[in-house]
């Protein structure tokens, strides 16, 4: 907490704990477990890395000190966001205000990148049909404690994700975190109860459509403000009062982000975890 980046810490915790490990493990399962002994000498890479590192350390000697309020980063738009953000956008969490309102274009782009990444994985690997695990291999079937604990945890995870989604303008959180946490809940369900059960909750073929729906909500808000003769993603047209409009716009946009992130993460999980090993 020394760096005061609550939203980032939150995101990293959700992504790191919930998603990255599962993705890495399933890819390792689908490729080879052992690596070949390296043939090249590591001398040249080490030399390149040492020189680059030395140059970078030399460059930091001119950098502003950690926490220096006079650093160039804090000079231009930063203070404006801090001073005017809560007034203009009307929400205490400045990170959400900057994310969804001031830098709405940027976030739209990021959402689109996530959507495209989901489509890329889908095109590369395709959605595998779930298969029934062979009973003699399925040791998780007997894990009663695990299943009971998972059943207790999942409603809490999903509820928490919704809280993070809709409370993002007041406290730490927002669509990105909520999407990841919601997906984590379903990933947990899939891991404990198997693919067939998980696909009954959300069929895999819904997910690309849901991902597109999220981007559509986000873009739709932008187009709506265009139709009202205002710039793209100008939320003040959404209500009579500009601040109220901002609030509504941020909520809608975060909802779009949340839906896209959730469905892309879950789609990637379905694809990677459901794929059978080919040898």
């Amino acid at each position: 907490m020394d760096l005061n980046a609550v939203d980032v810490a939150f995101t990293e915790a959700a992504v790191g704990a919930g998603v990255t490990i599962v993705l890495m493990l399933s890819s390792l399962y689908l490729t080879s477990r052992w690596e070949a002994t390296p043939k090249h000498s590591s001398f040249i890479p080490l030399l390149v890395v040492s020189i680059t590192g030395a140059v970078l350390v030399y460059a930091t000697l001119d950098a502003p000190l950690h926490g220096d309020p006079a650093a160039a980063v804090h000079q231009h738009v930063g203070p404006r966001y801090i001073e005017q953000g809560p007034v203009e956008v009307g929400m205490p969490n400045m990170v959400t205000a900057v994310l969804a309102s001031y830098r709405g274009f940027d976030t739209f782009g990021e959402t689109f990148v996530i959507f495209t990444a989901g489509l890329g994985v889908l095109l590369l690997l395709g959605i595998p049909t779930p298969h029934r695990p062979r009973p003699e291999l399925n040791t998780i079937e007997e894990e009663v404690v695990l299943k009971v604990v998972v059943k207790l945890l999942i409603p809490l995870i999903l509820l928490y994700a919704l809280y993070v989604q809709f409370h993002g303008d007041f406290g730490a959180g927002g669509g990105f975190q909520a999407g990841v946490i919601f997906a984590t809940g379903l990933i947990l369900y899939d891991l404990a109860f198997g693919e067939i059960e998980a696909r009954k909750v959300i069929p895999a073929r819904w997910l690309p459509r849901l991902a597109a729906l999220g981007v559509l909500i986000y873009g739709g808000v932008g187009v709506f403000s265009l139709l009202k003769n205002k710039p793209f993603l100008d939320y003040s047209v959404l209500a009579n009062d500009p601040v109220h409009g901002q609030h509504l716009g941020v909520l809608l946009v975060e909802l779009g982000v949340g839906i896209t992130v959730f469905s892309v993460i879950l789609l990637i999980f379905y694809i990677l975890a459901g794929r059978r090993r080919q040898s």
Partner: protein
Amino acid sequence: MIEIPGLYNYWVVVFLMMAGFYVVISQGNLVKKLVGLSLFQTSVFIFYISMGKISGGAAPILVEGITTYSNPLPHVLILTAIVVGVATTAVGLALVIRIYEAYGTVEEDEIQKQDLVDDASIEDPASTSSGEKDK
């Protein structure tokens, strides 16, 4: 608490970044390369967040009576980048899985060797009979 020197965070960033860079350029295993790339990416995240810090500032959520806040802009950039990062890593992993299914290996050297054999068999089909490893 002992005061850490002002440039300490940057040096940690440089160290992590170079560790990731080393893994990317020295390892032949494609999965390891992706792990190195993620490490590199994480170092950039730490760099941005360190830049956003203002000493004595609070987390950028408006609270009565607090006037100094850390810069919210780097936080915004990085929190989206984390989620984008995991999505793009997944694309990389998907590519690696396809490569493994096509070549039977994720080692760069062996893939290139197989490609050379394949190229040779296209140019002169009679000379090689072992190059039948195409998908």
